[in-house]
């Protein structure tokens, strides 16, 4: 608003000057303050020029469109400051190629923009990095609350996606995420119609993924999501995942690791990675069954395997949603190591955790090893016993069934031979 008031101030001064000029008969200044002189030529829809690369660029300006815009009461020369002399009107193109400088009025926005990624890309010489007019338009700028505005909530997606859903563009600039808009449209955020790109990415000062001040920098993600989900962020930042991620561990998950990025879906959606059908199949195992993570943090990948072989895991694999999955016992956002007294899997809390599904769970629930893997060389006594039972039974099965098969085979052979006609 300050800028616009400033602009109005300038306008008042200019009008004053105009009146002064009228009186003084300085007609040359007067000519460039009146839009009708410019529009005399630029209203022609076929007016074109060729740029340095020989591409044809339309020079048409719709008078009605401009009058209706937020800048409608300004004169052309207030923005096109480079065009000053009659030579331009007479067919020359002196100084006409200079870009319009919005900073004269919009100082704060410019300041923010200069911090952002788009301005830096322009400084590096990237041709198609967004400048003011790429997002706000040229002669048809409206306030962002106006539904006609390119920066209105309903249009921002479209505005950003002119470049960011352009496959060629994405490839050229190695942006990685191809067509984020398609994913976003289907997401729970996209469906609200209120969330847009800028809610997470910022607008004028949107920064690169690797910029530590960026809203989407790894360790800033919980805070970014927390602007709308503050309770969850608080829970998460105290959890083991949140603590490690906050310390810069790139392999510790943040919000997006489990929930997805542009295509975040509601947890009841079967496509959501945090859907109960997928949480123990793909979401947690993506790290906890991965050798890379297990080695680094000296976790054992056996947690996932032993879960899959347990009754809970087997029933879960078969589609039973009553059966416990990872989150049932370990929690969701507030997962803590079992050594933490606040953890759901701390030995003092286990009885309660088990008891939420098994009413009347005794203290023996808390004593046993849950993620046990049968092995004759196992750590726990139970693991060893089960390991031995396995060995004994396998020997028994091979002997008994093998013996029966052998006996019956001889029997069948003999009887077949005897029956030969």
């Amino acid at each position, binding site marked *: 608003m300050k800028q616009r008031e400033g602009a109005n101030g300038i306008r008042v001064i200019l009008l004053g000057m105009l009146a002064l000029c009228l009186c003084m008969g300085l007609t040359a200044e007067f000519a460039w303050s009146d839009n009708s002189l410019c529009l005399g030529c630029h209203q022609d829809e076929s007016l074109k020029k060729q740029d340095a690369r020989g591409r044809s660029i339309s020079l048409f300006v719709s008078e009605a469109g401009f009058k209706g815009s937020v800048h409608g009461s300004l004169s052309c020369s207030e923005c096109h400051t480079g065009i000053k002399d009659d030579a331009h009107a007479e067919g020359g193109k002196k100084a006409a190629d200079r870009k319009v400088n919005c900073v004269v009025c919009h100082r704060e926005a410019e300041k923010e923009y200069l911090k952002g990624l788009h301005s830096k890309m322009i400084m590096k010489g990237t041709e198609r990095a967004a400048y003011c007019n790429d997002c706000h338009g040229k002669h048809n700028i409206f306030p962002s609350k106006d539904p006609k505005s390119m920066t209105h909530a309903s249009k921002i997606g479209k505005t950003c996606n002119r470049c960011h859903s352009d496959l060629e563009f994405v490839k050229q600039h190695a942006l990685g995420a191809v067509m984020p808009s398609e994913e976003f449209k289907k997401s729970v955020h996209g469906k609200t119609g209120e969330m847009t790109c800028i809610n997470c990415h910022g607008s004028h000062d949107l920064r690169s993924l690797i910029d530590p001040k960026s809203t989407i920098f790894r360790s800033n993600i919980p805070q970014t999501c927390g602007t709308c989900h503050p309770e969850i962020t608080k829970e998460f930042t105290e959890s083991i995942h949140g603590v490690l991620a906050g310390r810069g561990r790139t392999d510790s998950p943040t919000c997006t690791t489990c929930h997805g990025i542009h295509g975040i879906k509601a947890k009841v959606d079967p496509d959501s990675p945090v859907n109960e059908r997928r949480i123990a199949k793909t979401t947690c195992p993506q790290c906890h069954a991965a050798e890379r993570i297990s080695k680094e943090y000296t976790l054992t990948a056996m947690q996932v395997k032993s879960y899959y072989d347990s009754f809970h895991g087997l029933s879960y694999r078969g589609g039973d949603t009553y059966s416990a999955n990872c989150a049932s016992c370990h929690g969701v956002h507030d997962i803590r190591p079992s050594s933490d007294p606040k953890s759901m899997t701390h030995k003092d809390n286990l009885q309660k955790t088990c008891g939420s599904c098994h009413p009347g769970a005794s203290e023996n629930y808390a004593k046993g090893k849950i993620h046990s893997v049968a092995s004759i060389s196992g750590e726990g006594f139970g693991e060893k016993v089960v390991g031995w039972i396995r060995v004994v*039974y396998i020997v028994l099965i091979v002997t008994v069934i093998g013996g029966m098969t052998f006996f019956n085979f001889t029997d069948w052979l003999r009887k077949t031979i*005897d029956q030969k006609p």
Partner: protein
Amino acid sequence: MTKKYLRMTLNERFQHLNLFINFTLLVITGFALKYPEAFWVSPITDVPLGMTFRGFLHRLCGVATLTLGGYHLLYCAFSDRGRGIIKDMIPGLNDAKDLWQTLKNNLFINRPAKEIPMGRFNFREKLEYLGLIWGTIVMTGTGFVLWFKTEWLAYFPMWTYDVARAIHFYEAILATLTIIVWHLYSVVWNPEVYPMSWAWITGNLTEHEMKLEHGLELDRIQAEEKELKEFGKAAAAGGGRVYPLFLKREKPLSLRGIVGAVKGMNETMKNWKGT
């Protein structure tokens, strides 16, 4: 007309059918849990609540099998025929000898092949029956631990639960494979009975079948037949069926009628003279 010999009474055939259905369902619903991604499990896992229903059905069949076991126990204890079954089922040294001789026959070690007369229940059947009892006891015990884990874990440590799970699983493999390899060979793939021994439906064995597998028993029956003058040919010609299988029903089916029929059947069995 070929002579027929009663092998299983209607009551016993129903026991067998009951066990057959329950065992099959137990095998399917049990291994469906252990191998949830197997192709044949998809009819269970694709259905909403399929796994929940699977668990319910497994327990139901377990209880049904246990009930059947209890009934069989009473049947064996309180009927003459049942007591006879137990008496004839006791394994002895002869059975081991029979097995050994059969193997020698099969491998052409006995030349020419020896005839091996066997009793009412041969070594195959005794092995299987005893295996079935053993399996039922083990599966019931471990099964109840798994079912009532909260109650069990109130008194026993967690690892005993894991032990019960392991035993339940491996015993299931053993039992299933025994049925497929041992029982199904005896009654289906055995070239002498192929495509199937019909005794589990008709209840009878032919004289030829009796001679092959139960030579001693056949001799005993034939000796008895000679003594029982008044029974004579008529009884044997009737296939040894000394009680009517299908009573002509005049009144509509009623609970009292069924109780009466069972009572009548037991009465007939009690008064049964021929074999």
